[in-house]
């Protein structure tokens, strides 16, 4: 059964901030979470989701010249069960969008999404009936990497931005938190 897509309604789709929802918290758990975040940030395994020409640059990012393994992300996984970050590389057609959403739902939490390139982030030049105008209409996107396609170092910069975000504890993708935030926002929208 397909899940409801909450972020389709709201355009601001990145993952919620943990601190925004719940101020304070346990000291012990917080310290442990800091440790976990360090571990998560330095071993984000990408899920292969090459859709178009951006995938060529994504592959060359893993190759010897740029060597994504220096950031602990060398293990590209073809299964969503072992991926931490989904790199949407290429234009996302409307026919592919349900597949993307299903694979995103199959990834274990915590999970992140990098939207790579102009087409995945906003549609780019393909402002037509076939292409989703921004992958954030289907899945919540954490980091956008502009470029057509982004060079491997630009993608590495995006991955470093994601690492910063994970370490700052802003990328906690607890489904409950997202639902709380979404419901709060929709109530505000209804009132407005």
């Amino acid at each position, binding site marked *: 059964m397909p899940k409801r897509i909450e972020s389709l309604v709201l355009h*601001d789709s990145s993952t919620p901030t943990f601190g925004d929802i719940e101020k304070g918290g346990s000291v012990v758990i917080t310290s442990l979470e800091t440790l976990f975040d360090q571990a998560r940030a330095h071993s984000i395994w990408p899920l292969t989701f090459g859709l178009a020409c951006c995938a060529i640059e994504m592959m060359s990012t893993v190759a010897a010249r740029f060597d994504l393994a220096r950031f602990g992300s060398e293990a590209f996984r073809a299964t969503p069960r072992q991926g931490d970050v989904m790199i949407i590389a290429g234009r996302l057609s409307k026919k592919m969008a349900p597949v993307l959403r299903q694979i995103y739902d199959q990834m274990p939490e915590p999970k992140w999404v990098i939207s790579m390139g*102009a087409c995945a*982030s906003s549609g780019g030049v393909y402002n037509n009936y076939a292409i989703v105008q921004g992958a954030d209409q289907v899945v919540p996107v954490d980091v956008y990497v*502009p470029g*057509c396609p982004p060079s491997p170092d630009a993608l590495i910069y995006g991955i470093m931005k994601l690492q910063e*975000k994970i370490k700052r504890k802003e990328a906690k993708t607890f489904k409950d938190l997202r639902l709380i935030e979404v419901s709060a926002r929709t109530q505000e929208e209804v009132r407005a």
Partner: protein
Amino acid sequence: MGLLKDVVKPILGGMTLTARRAANLGKNIVTIQYPDEMREQYQRSRWRHYLTRYDSGLERCIGCSLCAGACPARCIYVEAAENTDTERYSPGERYAVRYEINMIRCIFCGYCQDACPTGAIVLRKDFELANYKREQFIYTKEMLLEKYPGQNLEPYRSKVTGVEAPIYTG
């Protein structure tokens, strides 16, 4: 003798390759240690836009919207206003009061650069553009306009480490 041929010889062969690689350790390294060391940028590589100034400090942009017309992704928005003698921004009659580029939709083709009659908009080497929110990608005129004449010609420095990116020459 099966043992020598099937066991010892392949091991020695493999170890020879390892030894040859170990002897070359430190030479012929292809990996670029990206945040600490920048890849050389090609002379015509196109990334982030700049709105340039004349040496006098006046803006080159005259708000003609030819860049917006040439843009295949329709990511440029220009709004022009008239110059007056008291408030003069550009040498021509008009200047761009608003100039916005949606950096997330831009495909960095450089057609705006080609279309510009005054050479106001140029694409330079700043490739580190990734960010978290969609709103952060609307680059306004304040962000695009260089602070002083010739700022866009300076070599690009990494946002992470401040290392200078060399220009590829031959």
